[in-house]
């Protein structure tokens, strides 16, 4: 299945290095995506809410969400998304360094679609991003806008 429309990804990540790695990984991919980056939880919510009431009402197709964020952490952001009728259908992938059991359980309880631990190794990280890209942009049927 070939995607014709570029998909929009909202990356909520406070580490510029990780943003760079993710962008690097996505650039290596064959497919076209538009990456929006915000570096804290509150900005993410502002972004999503303003987006949803904008003139074209366009929402991101996928959200990549870190857990350790300034001001509002990933769990809170995920909870607000799932409580918002307009946003709750958007797939959310947690992308974090934490392998804490509590974080994993909470994320799934809050209806995260996937929980991925950032690999320590750069090459492995890039591989993960490319796999994500391949899965979500080519295989997964996303909710219609």
């Amino acid at each position, binding site marked *: 299945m070939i995607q014709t429309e570029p998909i929009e990804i909202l990356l909520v990540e406070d580490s510029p290095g990780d943003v760079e*790695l993710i962008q*690097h990984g996505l650039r290596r991919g064959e497919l076209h995506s538009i990456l929006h980056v915000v570096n804290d939880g509150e900005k993410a919510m502002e972004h999503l809410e303003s987006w949803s009431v904008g003139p074209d009402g366009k929402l991101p197709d996928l959200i990549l969400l870190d857990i350790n964020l300034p001001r509002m952490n990933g769990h809170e952001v995920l909870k607000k998304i799932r409580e918002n009728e307009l946003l709750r259908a958007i797939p959310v992938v947690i992308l974090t*360094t934490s392998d804490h059991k509590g974080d994993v359980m909470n994320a799934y309880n809050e209806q995260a679609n996937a929980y991925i631990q950032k690999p*320590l*190794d750069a*090459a492995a990280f890039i591989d993960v991003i490319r796999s994500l890209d391949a899965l979500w942009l080519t295989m997964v049927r996303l909710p219609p806008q």
Partner: protein
Amino acid sequence: MHGFRWVIVALSLCVTVGAWYFAQENVEQKRRGQFEREADRVRQLVVERMQKYEDALWSGVAVVDVLDGDIAYGAWREFAESLRIDERYPGIHGIGVIEAVERSELPAYLEKRRRERPDFHVHPVHEQDDYLPITFIEPEADNKSAVGLDIAHEANRYQAALHAAESGRAQITAPIVLAQDAQKTPGFLFYAPYYLAARAPRTDSNAEDDGPTFAGMVYAPFVFANLMHGILAQETRYVSLGISDGTDALYDEHLPTVADYDPDPLYSRRDTLAVYGREWTFDIRSSLSFRNAHQTQQPILILIGGILIDGLLLGLFLAISATNRKALSLADAATAELESKTAALKESNQELEHFVYVASHDLQEPLRMVGSFASLLHAEYGGQFDAQGERWLGFMVDGAKRMQSLVQGFLAYSRVNSTEMDTAGPVEAQQVVASVLRDLEPELEESGATIEIDNLPAVHGTEDQLRHVFTSLLSNAIKFRLPGTSPSVRIEANSDRTMCTFTVIDDGIGIDEKYADRIFVIFQRLHGDDAFQGAGVGLAIAKKAVALQGGTLRFESNPGDGAAFHFTVPLARSTPNPPRIVSSRKAQGAPV
């Protein structure tokens, strides 16, 4: 203090009081018996002595009878002397004869008596029809004032004389004062009447028959004090005596001036006794010497001794109670202190564990950046560095990797913590080992290891911690194999009542026992990086996990000849001990 101790003290007190009471009763009974015997004896003495005097009087009567009433002064004196009154009748004042003289016969009587004693006269004057003058009284010297005394002049003397005359029996008078007693103390006269047949019949109307006629009396005058002195002088007595005739006191020893007087006698009794026509009341009381002779400390000693023992017993019990209370309060205080220290320690441990976790986690982020971009730099721009730049980049990547491995070790170590024990429960060791072997499958295959496993019991703990222990021990057993050999590992389990000892035995390079202390310390490694990979956290984590579950971890080894790691964990509660299975089986996935 416990109830039973009070009961013992109460019982002991009862026994003491009981013993005291019975001792008291016993003493009292004996003492009263003694008093009664003494009282009887004294009364008997008086009675017997009176009988002796009566006998003397009757012997006088016999003399008068023999002489047919015609008694001469000399004959009576002779008789009186033969009685040896002073010697044999102490207390008697004398023995004499009173003759009954009719008014008409008085001149003849006087004439007859004046022949022997010219100054004899009858006195005092009275109005009775008859005269009862004292004719003789011996020894006369002491009784001069009585000679010629007509006893009819005074009612008490006269009444008793009439009774004696009528009854023919010995009689005594009511209390009188003797004429010869200068001290005017109470006394009495003791009469024994005699009768003469030859006398002319009485002319008074009272004469009833022609039998012998009352002719007189042999008599003895008594001063009561002297009598009693005579009776009782030689006796050792424990009682004092008072005798009264009606309301008249005859004799009284119950006086403070008497040496043996007891103002508060222990016993007393009053007997009334008929004594020769009179009723004498004997008032007998225990004396001071009685009190002293029967003074016994026994009951009071029993009481004091018993109470003293009870007091000691009570004191002992109270002391024991106080000591118990003190010990309990000390123990409580110690327990409370220990609890608070334990709580503080637990809190401090949790803080430390949290700190280690947070620090490791936060360190990991920048470290990942360094490592990631160093390797990215190497991968994508490697060609643009010269050899030295490449080498330095290599050190950077390698250092970041090692640092990551250490931080990972820290994280793993900090995750094995006491809060995990909150979820402790029964864990099937067999399943845990199977799961660990699945995780280690790449290493097992690569090394060609053979694993033998006993039947393993269920233990009490958490699955994660047991997994840490088996992972560490099994991966070490495979890792530290002799070069060029396939390791052979065996897992045994031996249970006693509460604990299970697991043993992991390998045939690897072994450990010099001088490193026994070091191998369980985090980041301690015995081999250079080139020989055996690892961060040096596995055994530290295993030791911590075993300790958290309440067990111990130790090893035995000869370098070059394998090692055996033993660790104990509590058996799962309420699960019976499984018998140790001697046969073993090959682990799944292990090459044969």
